[in-house]
């Protein structure tokens, strides 16, 4: 093992964690960490939260200082793309033309923002939010603009909207479905956040699509909706989801389908090539079938799993997924995957701004969404790690001691 070489493609949270965990697991070979952004590996969540708001700086964004990589003998190759995986020759070809010979490839290539395919999307002021460079532009522009249109009411869009309102900017959120964050949260949670954003002064148009973006002098001026309305805007944030970066794997002949297809060990059909994090499509007992998850937890825990396997301790990946979103004074915490639930009960009082939605499928607890109710979130993570025996009536009954119930099971 001392002589083998691991090349990690992608220097986001999952890639960084793979490198770090390989050393913690005692892996003594060479470790390359290759990222296409010019910056040191950094955390993405603050980009739409505290960093965007100007409440935190670059020092709080770096996952580790530069000296960490030297100390741990992690060969950091940043500002560099990987253009090809040579499976036979066991080497990576880089955009600069050089090559890295390696025994194991970990694809942590992440995802990229999905562009909005309408006329005018190329105008100045129509912006994505995915990278540090994106966040730096938005942070500066937020101080200059008056009217923002947010296209897409997912986590990123709503977090951005909350920051923009707090900065005194007018916000109009346009969402093509009837349910903000509807891909990942239940109807009660979606409704609650819709109301919260309206309360903070945002306008929300549901079931509305952008058909065109108008500008003058190359700069955005307004957004045209499919119901004929024209909404003035001097900044348009496009946040309609992401596309997994799976092309490198596809070009190497590996199976792709909503991400890079891996087994329960996070290995592709080629055992020496793994995929983790936002780009990986994996089987899980926490959903029906396979999923691809975009979260810190998923990236970090999958990185640990692959690092342990490479270091000689293979085990199937089986961590409870969890997610969070900060929107003004509201903290949304999700344990499990609630999509696909066929029943739900609310614990607590949405009117008071503190509640949880317990989601069930065929009477089995599959996930819990908590708003300003961290104790429920922690209990949910405990319950879901085992075989969660919790009846909907128990979940809804605030006199039922969930904590004691979870402890009994543990």
């Amino acid at each position, binding site marked *: 093992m001392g002589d083998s070489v691991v090349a990690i493609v992608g220097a986001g949270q999952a890639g960084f964690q793979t490198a770090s965990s390989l050393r913690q697991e005692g892996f003594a070979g060479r470790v390359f960490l290759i990222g296409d952004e010019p910056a040191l590996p950094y955390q993405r969540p603050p980009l739409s939260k505290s960093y965007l708001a100007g409440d935190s700086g670059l020092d709080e964004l770096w996952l580790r200082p530069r000296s960490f990589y030297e100390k741990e003998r992690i060969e950091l190759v940043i500002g560099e793309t990987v253009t090809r995986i040579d499976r036979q020759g066991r080497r990576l070809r880089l955009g600069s033309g050089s090559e890295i010979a390696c025994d194991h490839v970990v694809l942590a290539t992440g995802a990229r923002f999905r562009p909005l395919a309408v006329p005018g999307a190329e105008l100045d002021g129509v912006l994505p939010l995915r990278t540090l460079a994106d966040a730096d532009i938005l942070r500066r522009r937020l101080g200059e603009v008056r009217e923002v249109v947010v296209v897409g009411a997912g986590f990123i869009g709503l977090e951005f909207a909350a920051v923009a309102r707090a900065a005194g900017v007018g916000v109009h959120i346009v969402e093509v479905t009837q349910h903000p964050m509807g891909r990942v949260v239940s109807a009660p949670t979606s409704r609650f956040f819709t109301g919260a954003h309206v309360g903070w002064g945002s306008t929300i148009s549901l079931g509305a699509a952008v058909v065109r973006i108008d500008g003058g002098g190359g700069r955005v001026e307004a957004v045209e909706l499919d119901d004929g309305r024209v909404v003035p805007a001097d900044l348009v944030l496009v946040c309609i989801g992401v596309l997994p970066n799976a092309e490198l794997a596809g070009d190497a002949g590996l199976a792709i389908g909503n991400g890079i297809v891996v087994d329960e060990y996070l290995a592709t059909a080629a055992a020496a090539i793994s995929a983790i994090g936002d780009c990986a499509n994996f089987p899980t007992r926490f959903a029906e079938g396979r999923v691809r998850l975009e979260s810190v937890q998923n990236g970090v825990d999958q990185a640990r799993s692959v690092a342990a396997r490479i270091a000689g301790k293979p085990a199937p990946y089986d961590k409870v997924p969890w997610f969070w979103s900060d929107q003004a004074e509201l903290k949304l915490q999700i344990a499990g995957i609630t999509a696909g639930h066929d029943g739900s009960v609310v614990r607590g009082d949405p009117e008071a701004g503190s509640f949880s939605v317990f989601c069930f499928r065929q009477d089995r607890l599959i996930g819990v969404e908590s708003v300003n109710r961290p*104790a429920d979130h922690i209990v949910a993570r*405990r319950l879901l790690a085992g075989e969660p025996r919790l009846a909907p009536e128990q979940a809804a009954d605030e006199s039922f001691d969930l904590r004691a119930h979870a402890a009994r099971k543990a």
Partner: protein
Amino acid sequence: MPSITYVHPDGARDVIEVPVGTSVMRGAILNNVDGIVAECGGEMMCATCHVYVDEPYLARIPPQSDDEKAMLEFTASERKPTSRLSCQLVVTPEMDGLVVYLPETQV
């Protein structure tokens, strides 16, 4: 600049100058102190920046929020009365000399 001492499970000590306004967690991360993982970056989602605060200093640090209390139930190492999440310990001048003990494991 306040000085913070991180004591590893084997007794080794890292003494780090941490600027006022920076958390005890960040102070460790930026200075390569092993034993603090901080995978959520200080959002109170992961409990991987768990420390035990040396008792004499308990009165000089900010109280626990409900979020922190809840998250401390999820620590990988034993929770003790002195357990804190170091991301919530934002350094003040009064915390100069603070000693924190790192747990056996964070994950």
